[in-house]
């Protein structure tokens, strides 16, 4: 919302400076976005009198002017055809920045074809203050030398642009802004009553409200014998200053009132409309009309139109039709002042895509009390500017009731805000804003003005009081931690994510944060997006479904880094994946990616493989508190993993805690990722919660002082047998005695039969109370060999 300072001052008597007014607006909740003060921009430029203008001795098109300026009499060479003695012009001193040309004059006089020029005479275009191109500005009127150019050009009126919050439609008019600023102590509100214009003949147009839910009241009147045409300069200037294009006087008057009183009106050429007009539901194609934006619309049954008996004239409260609009030839005019239901306007506006000042106001809620005053103000201005004769006012329907009075306990102001404020002050603030205050009872009765439909309860009034009193007066009271023992508030899951994240970073991975959404066909590579998780209005087709895996963007980012030639990028993300659209469908994963390529090192670098991914997965899960010793690895990762070089880590047969391994080369190809990639996706929600313990005390440490015994066994194992099963079987051969089983060699080739591998394990036997005898060690060895044999393995001879 834009307005000019002079316009505001017509409604607010104040001697405050622009800066003070701007500050008061900010502190009253009118957030300033921008103040354009042409006087600041044009500070360098002043009025000058051209005393003499002689032809340049050496150039036909140039003149050498003698100019009386604020800096004394100057010789200025000017190329403008209209430069002449006796004219009042605008002078730019040496060194001045010329905004319209985007350059600064030299600081020293410059010779132009041999004649020194001590400054410049400017056109309004060069000042970005107009678009004359016939030459330099030729000021009318009696301006003294040195008068600021902004003043002489009538540009000394700052334009203030501020953000109107959706709850305050009354701020969409200068009058409403003035009221709030007066309440905030900036000046005195000028709220003169609008004097009605008495009609001299009955309104020849009959009005009907055929859809009172959408348009409960519709007032109108005719002014006949008007002379329409360009509006007077003051009105055009005012509209231009706030970015509106002047059309003609009748239309300009409605725009003026829209921005002054937040009251949209519409004017019809009476010769183009029938004798009955009504607000009714739209009739679809048969209502097709061309709106003032030049586009055609088919109003629907839930849109409110204004129509006569033969045609639709416009969308009520949104935009009028081209056909019945006022033009320079309009002689008789019908003025519409109605009130439209905000929700219907909003729907109509959204569905038609029409953006208009009327829609903007009506969908936020126009003052119901402005229907008749707005009509009267328009009539007055039309009579003043266009002449003519006004009919009586015709009112159809009823003005919606004002908001109900609020029972307001003033003690709540201090309770909710902490402000130390007297009841008298509370009452005076409310009264200044237009509320009525009845203090007969401890709980006051506060009546709400028709322009404040946003206020319906006590909290609304408290906000008004606090806002006008000033938030800078609120106390600053530290919020102390409640007394008593400090209990760390993080949940087990939060701590789990934190630790897992650190585990991943400690493995050399960099934490990334990537989009929660991805492209549908990329999601399909990872099992597809969940039910109900396709966006209806994605920001781009690249991001149109919720991701079923965090690997998508990590893989794409990995390739981008490789494309940049960066060595061994490793990313992880601790974030959400989405399985369905319920709150439980969102899961937290830690996903990791790295290229499966060995770096180069003078000592030789190992080729990373699926087992590095497995170690990463185990590290993250251990960080997250999973019982990693109990996890089983199984080759059961889903189809986007390499079928032979991937697996899951699970607890029991079903609870999968992580998938790890190489990503399926086909998936990588679809994502345009080159080479092989190792990845992990750990599902932190699947990690079982730690058992709650009564105390933090741990069981006493029990270690044996007896020397552990180590024995090596090499087993010939058929290739189908999983090494993990063999190790688990060996470890289970004597749970008391065997403290560790470590696989230290795996060999296939010469000496090992076809279809077999040799697996060598080192078994650690830890005696607890006495040294083991050879016989005891032999007995355990036999059990170990028997256990291995059950897995199909044979001790290697």
């Amino acid at each position, binding site marked *: 919302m834009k307005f000019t300072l002079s316009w505001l001052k017509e409604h607010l008597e104040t001697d405050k400076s622009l800066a003070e007014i701007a500050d008061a607006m900010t502190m009253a909740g009118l957030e300033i976005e921008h103040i354009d003060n042409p006087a600041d921009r044009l500070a360098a430029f002043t009025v000058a009198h051209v005393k003499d203008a002689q032809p340049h001795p050496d150039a036909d098109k140039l003149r050498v002017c003698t100019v009386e300026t604020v800096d004394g009499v100057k010789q200025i060479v000017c190329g403008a055809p209209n430069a002449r003695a006796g004219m009042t012009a605008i002078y730019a001193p040496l060194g001045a920045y010329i905004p319209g040309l985007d350059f600064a004059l030299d600081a020293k006089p410059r010779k132009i074809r041999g004649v020194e020029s001590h400054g410049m005479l400017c056109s309004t275009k060069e000042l970005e203050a107009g678009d004359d191109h016939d030459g330099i500005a030729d000021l009318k009127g009696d301006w003294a030398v040195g008068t600021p150019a902004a003043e002489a050009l009538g540009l000394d009126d700052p334009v203030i642009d501020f953000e109107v919050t959706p709850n305050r439609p009354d701020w969409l008019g200068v009058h409403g802004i003035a009221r709030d600023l007066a309440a905030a102590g900036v000046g005195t509100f000028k709220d003169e009553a609008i004097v009605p214009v008495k009609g001299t003949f009955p309104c020849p147009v009959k009005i009907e409200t055929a859809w009172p839910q959408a348009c409960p009241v519709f007032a109108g009147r005719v002014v006949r014998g008007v002379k329409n045409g360009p509006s007077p300069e003051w009105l055009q200037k005012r509209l231009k200053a706030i970015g509106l294009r002047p059309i003609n006087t009748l239309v300009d008057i409605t725009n003026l009132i829209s921005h002054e009183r937040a009251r949209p009106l519409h004017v019809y050429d009476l010769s183009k409309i029938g004798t009955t007009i009504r607000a009714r539901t739209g009739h679809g194609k048969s209502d097709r009309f061309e709106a003032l934006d030049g586009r055609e619309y088919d109003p629907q049954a839930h849109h409110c139109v204004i129509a006569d008996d033969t045609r639709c004239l416009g969308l009520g409260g949104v935009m009028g039709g081209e056909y019945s609009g006022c033009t320079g030839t309009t002689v008789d005019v019908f003025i519409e002042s109605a009130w439209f239901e905000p*929700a219907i306007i909003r729907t109509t506006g959204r569905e038609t895509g029409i953006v208009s000042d009327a829609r903007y106001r009506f969908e*936020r809620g126009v003052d119901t009390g402005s229907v008749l005053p707005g009509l009267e103000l328009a009539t007055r201005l039309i009579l003043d500017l266009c002449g003519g004769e006004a009919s009586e006012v015709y009112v159809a329907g009823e003005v919606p009731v004002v908001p109900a009075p609020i029972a307001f306990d003033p003690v709540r102001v201090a309770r909710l*805000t902490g402000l130390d404020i007297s009841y008298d002050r509370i009452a005076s603030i409310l009264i200044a804003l237009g509320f009525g205050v009845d203090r007969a009872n401890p709980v006051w009765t506060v009546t709400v003005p028709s322009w404040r439909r946003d206020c319906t309860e006590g909290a609304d009034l408290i906000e008004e009081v606090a806002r006008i009193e000033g*938030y800078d007066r609120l106390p*600053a009271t530290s919020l102390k931690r409640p007394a008593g023992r400090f209990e760390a508030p993080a949940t087990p899951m939060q701590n789990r994510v934190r630790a897992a994240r650190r585990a991943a970073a400690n493995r050399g991975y960099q934490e*990334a944060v990537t989009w929660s959404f991805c492209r549908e066909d990329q999601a399909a590579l990872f099992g597809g997006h969940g039910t109900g998780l396709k966006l*209806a209005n994605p920001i781009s087709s690249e991001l149109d479904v919720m991701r079923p895996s965090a690997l998508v963007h990590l893989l794409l980012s990995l390739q981008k880094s490789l494309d940049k030639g960066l060595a061994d990028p490793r990313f992880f993300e601790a974030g959400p994946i989405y399985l369905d659209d319920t709150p439980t469908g969102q899961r937290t994963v830690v996903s990791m990616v790295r290229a499966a390529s060995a770096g180069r090192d003078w000592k030789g670098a190992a080729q990373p493989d699926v087992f590095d991914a497995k170690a990463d997965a185990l590290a993250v899960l251990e960080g997250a508190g999973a019982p990693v010793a109990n996890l089983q690895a199984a080759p059961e990762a889903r189809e986007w993993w390499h079928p032979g070089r991937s697996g899951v880590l699970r607890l029991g047969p079903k609870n999968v805690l992580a998938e790890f391994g190489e990503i399926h080369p086909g998936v990588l190809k679809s994502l345009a990722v080159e080479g092989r990639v190792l990845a992990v996706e750990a599902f932190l929600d699947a990690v079982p919660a730690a058992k709650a313990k009564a105390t933090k005390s741990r069981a006493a440490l029990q270690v044996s002082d007896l020397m552990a015994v180590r024995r090596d066994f090499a087993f010939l194992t058929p290739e189908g047998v999983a090494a993990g099963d063999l190790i688990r079987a060996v470890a289970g051969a004597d749970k008391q005695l065997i403290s560790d089983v470590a696989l230290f060699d795996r060999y296939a080739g010469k000496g090992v039969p076809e279809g077999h591998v040799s697996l060598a394990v080192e078994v650690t036997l830890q005696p607890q109370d006495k040294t083991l005898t050879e016989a005891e060690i032999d007995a355990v060895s036999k059990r170990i060999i028997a256990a291995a044999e059950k897995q199909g393995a044979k001790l290697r001879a």
Partner: protein
Amino acid sequence: MTTSDDLDALEKRYSAAIEAADAIPALEEVRVAALGKKGEVSLKMRDLGGMSPEERKVFGPALNGLKDRLTSAIEAKKSALEAAALDAALASERVDITLPAPREPKGSLHPVSQVMEELAVIFADMGFAVAEGPDVEDDFHNFTALNFPADHPARDTHDTFFMEASADGTAKLLRTHTSPVQIRTLMNSEPPVRIIAPGRVYRCDWDQTHTPMFHQIEGLVIDKDTHMGHLKGCLIDFIAAFFETDEVEVRFRPHHFPFTEPSAEMDVRYERVGDAIKVGSGDKWLEILGCGMVHPNVIKACGLDPDVYQGFAFGMGVDRVAMLKYGMSDLRPFFEPDPRWLSHYGFSPLLQANLATGLS
């Protein structure tokens, strides 16, 4: 007959031999020749038995002295030879210690994680727990319960992402703010409530300062007597703690949010120092967050009596305060992983924000 002169000559000869020995075996030969079972000195010791008591008195001590001196000379020489041998062996083991150590990739934590942990620490000290809620929300939690009237322009300001409507005609949406966590928390817990709720939020907007996904943190306090002065005090304390400065000057401006009343935006006095900001000095105000007293309709929507319970809420952009504190000028790289950016702006996993050792 042995004479003292013989002994002197003997000693001279062997001392010279010891001195001349250039390796352990040569030295050993000298030792055997002198002090071995059939060594010259040993033989002379044996001869002592055939001497008269007077002679023995003279030659016994002389021989013993000779034996001791040669023994220690041999020992000394042996140590010297061993040391020289070790030096020679070590010299052959020398490596070029300027060769590089094995490269270990360096992991790091994302600045958003770091800042969220900092926020959790600061607010934990004020008694706040951390609450969470889903990203895929429904209209009720994201708008209706937060007092957004149906079909009101206030909803337009949120640039909401909607899911395609399901079979029953309802459409989920992506939460546009973390405020739905207020509703989920209040509906499931009894006051007093003090929570912060950090998380991902989504708005249909993309330029240098907006990304379709970003992070917010919500704060909520509900009890019977927390007023707007507490809101102000809490946030001033927070700004001081987060920006690690005592010089905080804030400005509360009235604003409008459907779910708070009175509503405010908080500005902080600042000046720019490079891409980072210095809080507390300068002549500019920077909008940091939105806040206010929880609207009675929100309290009511959560099944509580607004005549009994009141409190405040605030919401703040996590990425934004991360940028302000740590000096990133562009938001987009937050979500476009690049190892160089992550190394430069990331944090060591060994550090963890806490009250005892600091935030960062």
